[in-house]
């Protein structure tokens, strides 16, 4: 680490519509360090980074880059100077190829007419991808890739440029363990090359594994900066939430009842086959597996968002015919999707409107919405889930990532589902809010609801599941009881090991 900071942000203030979200933040970054930026959902991490890269303008304060005062007016400006960002929300154009996405806005061209050097771009992007250890065909349309793969393209895009400062806003939220390992290798290499990395994540293990220093924001203020080696988990969490949080997972005392939900030989040609499992009353069934194993597709099929090619589903002994999501909802099944931006939320609508959508029946009479009841319930939900918002009418688009996730969660609590399917329920959610979500899951199962939780975070799978089902390449490779479940067993089954 050199002695002069490459980036120094001083006394940064920022308000949106007269609500101050950054209240004089200081932040400095040195070349060759990986610096974690931590804080609860809505603490202002993304906003601070957006100010650094010229997406937002600060109301007050100064940014020095390599010792000189800078004001960027667009991310492109910042990129020219060597500051690249991987945003929390994906920015991939689905119809363009992987290579086209990677070179978007900085295409390689021939001579004065600007004809595109397509071959060269395809070749180069393939190189970058290989460097990251990813096997993706660079001429494939980006929309056909999984979320995790799309994320890797963004990373490849960012490091393809001559980057001196790399900002990563929750880059691993959608990545598998293997992909994360690759990413960390790349990050270590970049650090050796003297690149300064700002790393935002809600995953504690990662922070302590890869970062040199940690700066914590709380409510738009810098609380402090610590060396990773001399601090610990508890201290950081306390700095983040301002109080002791205690155990990460609330105690799970499950009272499991009779069989409730049965999936029998569910198949979808080419994606998954002969999926058979059951969920009992009050049970949380964790579903583990690598990215692309088909977990999400199985859940979407159960929910009626995809057609099945065979198999049966029954709830409480009654066979269900689900062809559309509304059939599933009517039967008492709720589904929290993994991609909140495309599938979970209607970004242009308010918190209230989003929360209420699956519950419109409850809040209306002969098709007319009962606004008072609706508003009251929305306010309850906001309190219950501690959604950080200026009020029920705020557009969900302007909520922080974690708070958006809470809105998605809240949507489904209203229908009081018998079975709730959660696909990556705590992605991008801060430690405190995670615990709240776990508590809600416990509360729901205590009331006799059943939960299926798909998750790529093993600690979460191990901490919350009563049983763990492991999927590998579209097949169930193991169903493990809570007592017998451990990381090794799950990973073995997830990579195609033997059935236990």
């Amino acid at each position, binding site marked *: 680490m050199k002695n002069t900071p490459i980036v120094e942000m001083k006394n940064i203030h920022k308000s*949106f519509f*007269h609500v101050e979200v950054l209240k004089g933040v200081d932040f400095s970054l040195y070349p060759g360090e990986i610096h974690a930026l931590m804080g609860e959902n809505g603490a202002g991490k993304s906003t601070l980074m957006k100010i650094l890269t010229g997406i937002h303008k600060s109301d007050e304060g100064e940014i020095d880059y390599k010792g000189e005062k800078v004001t960027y007016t667009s991310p492109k400006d910042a990129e020219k100077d060597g500051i690249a960002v991987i945003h929390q929300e994906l920015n991939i154009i689905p119809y363009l190829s992987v290579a086209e996405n990677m070179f978007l806005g900085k295409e390689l061209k021939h001579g004065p007419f600007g004809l595109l050097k397509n071959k060269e771009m395809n070749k180069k992007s393939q190189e970058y991808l290989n460097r990251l250890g990813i096997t993706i065909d660079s001429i494939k349309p980006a929309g056909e890739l999984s979320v995790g793969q799309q994320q890797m393209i963004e990373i490849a895009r960012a490091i393809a440029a001559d980057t001196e400062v790399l900002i990563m806003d929750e880059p691993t939220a959608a990545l598998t363990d293997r992909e994360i390992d690759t990413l960390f290798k790349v990050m270590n290499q970049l650090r050796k090359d003297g690149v300064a990395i700002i790393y935002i994540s809600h995953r504690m293990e990662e922070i302590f594994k890869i970062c040199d220093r940690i700066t914590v924001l709380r409510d738009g203020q810098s609380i402090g900066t610590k060396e990773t080696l001399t601090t610990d988990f508890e201290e950081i969490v306390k700095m983040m939430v301002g109080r002791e949080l205690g155990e990460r997972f609330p105690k799970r005392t499950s009272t499991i009842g009779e069989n409730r939900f049965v999936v029998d030989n569910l198949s979808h040609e080419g994606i998954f086959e002969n999926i058979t499992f059951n969920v009992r009353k009050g049970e949380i069934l964790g579903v583990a597996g690598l990215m692309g194993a088909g977990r999400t597709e199985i859940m979407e099929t159960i929910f009626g968002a995809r057609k099945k090619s065979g198999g049966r589903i029954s709830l409480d002994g009654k066979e269900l015919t689900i062809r559309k999501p509304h059939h599933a909802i009517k039967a008492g099944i709720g589904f929290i999707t993994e991609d909140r931006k495309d599938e979970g939320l209607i970004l242009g609508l308010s918190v209230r409107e989003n929360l209420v959508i699956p519950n419109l029946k409850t809040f209306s009479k002969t098709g007319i919405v009962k606004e008072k009841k609706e508003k009251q319930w929305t306010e309850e939900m906001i309190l219950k889930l501690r959604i950080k918002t*200026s009020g029920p*009418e*705020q557009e969900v688009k302007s909520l922080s990532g974690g708070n958006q996730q809470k809105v998605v969660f809240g949507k489904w609590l209203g229908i009081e589902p018998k079975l709730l399917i959660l696909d990556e329920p705590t992605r991008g959610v801060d430690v405190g809010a995670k615990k709240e979500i776990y508590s809600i899951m416990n509360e729901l199962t205590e009331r006799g609801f059943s939960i299926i939780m798909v998750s790529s975070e093993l600690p979460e799978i191990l901490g919350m599941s009563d049983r763990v089902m492991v999927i590998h390449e579209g097949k169930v490779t193991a169903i493990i009881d809570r007592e017998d479940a451990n990381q090794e067993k799950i990973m073995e089954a997830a990579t195609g090991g033997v059935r236990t």
Partner: protein
Amino acid sequence: MNKISKGLGSVQKLGPVLGLVLITIILAIMSPNFLTVDNILNVLRQVSINAIIAFGMTFVILTGGIDLSVGSILALGSALTAGMLASGMDPILAVLIGLLAGAIMGLINGVIITKGKVAPFIATLATMTIFRGLTLVYTDGRPITGLSDSISFQMIGKGYFFGIPFPVVTMLIAYFILFFILRKTTFGRGVYAIGGNEEASLLSGLKVDRLKMGVYSITGLLSALAGITLTSRLNSAQPTAGVSYELDAIAAVVLGGTSLSGGRGWIFGTLIGALIIGVLNNGLNLLNVSSFYQQVVKGGVILLAVLLDRKKAA
């Protein structure tokens, strides 16, 4: 913040109203005949047909779709109603059947779009031609005249209600009903939701197909209503009635600030948008501007409005 951002929203929404006021003031200064009670009622009557269609178009555009067939539905609805009247059918029944026919034509659009998975632009481009063709077949390419002399039918287009032209009353009633549907019902919620994010709406359990079919049916019904009003006013049905009306309707919606990509907008804006177009037409006529130039001015105003809107959004 809530109050403030809401306030900000309403300032933005004031745009179309300010535009209307501005145009009215300019025209009032330039032409002394403009701001008279007679002329204003005249403008309102002229506006009503476009406004009624544009209300339906607002629903369609809010879902992220478009309906090019409104003019043809107007013509076929008008012709069918006129035909029934000419054959001596009870006028009320004839009108109801005419409206139903419009709704069914709209439903056909909806079915093609949802079940056939055809893009709304293409689907309604096709039905626009089909419905127009059917109108020509039905009327044999000639106007249908000699309709009923029933007072109640004459009222629809020519009558007055406490001094207000009946078409204007029809327009206002339609406005209030549709405003209510959009703002206060689960159906209206669904319209905004689908336009905002269809995938998320589907996964939230909205019956997306059914909602869309409803939206196109409403638009069909309103187009037929406009057609019947026109028929009554002219006391005949013209096979070429309503040609290019879809453009004025879309213009009214856009002028009113509704986003063509769906999910954002309001029906009040459409009313104002229709008024802007009507006032412009009327004012330019009074000023003896040639109809060729009128088109240029109208197009210019639409462009300006959209550009200003862009600025505000940025």
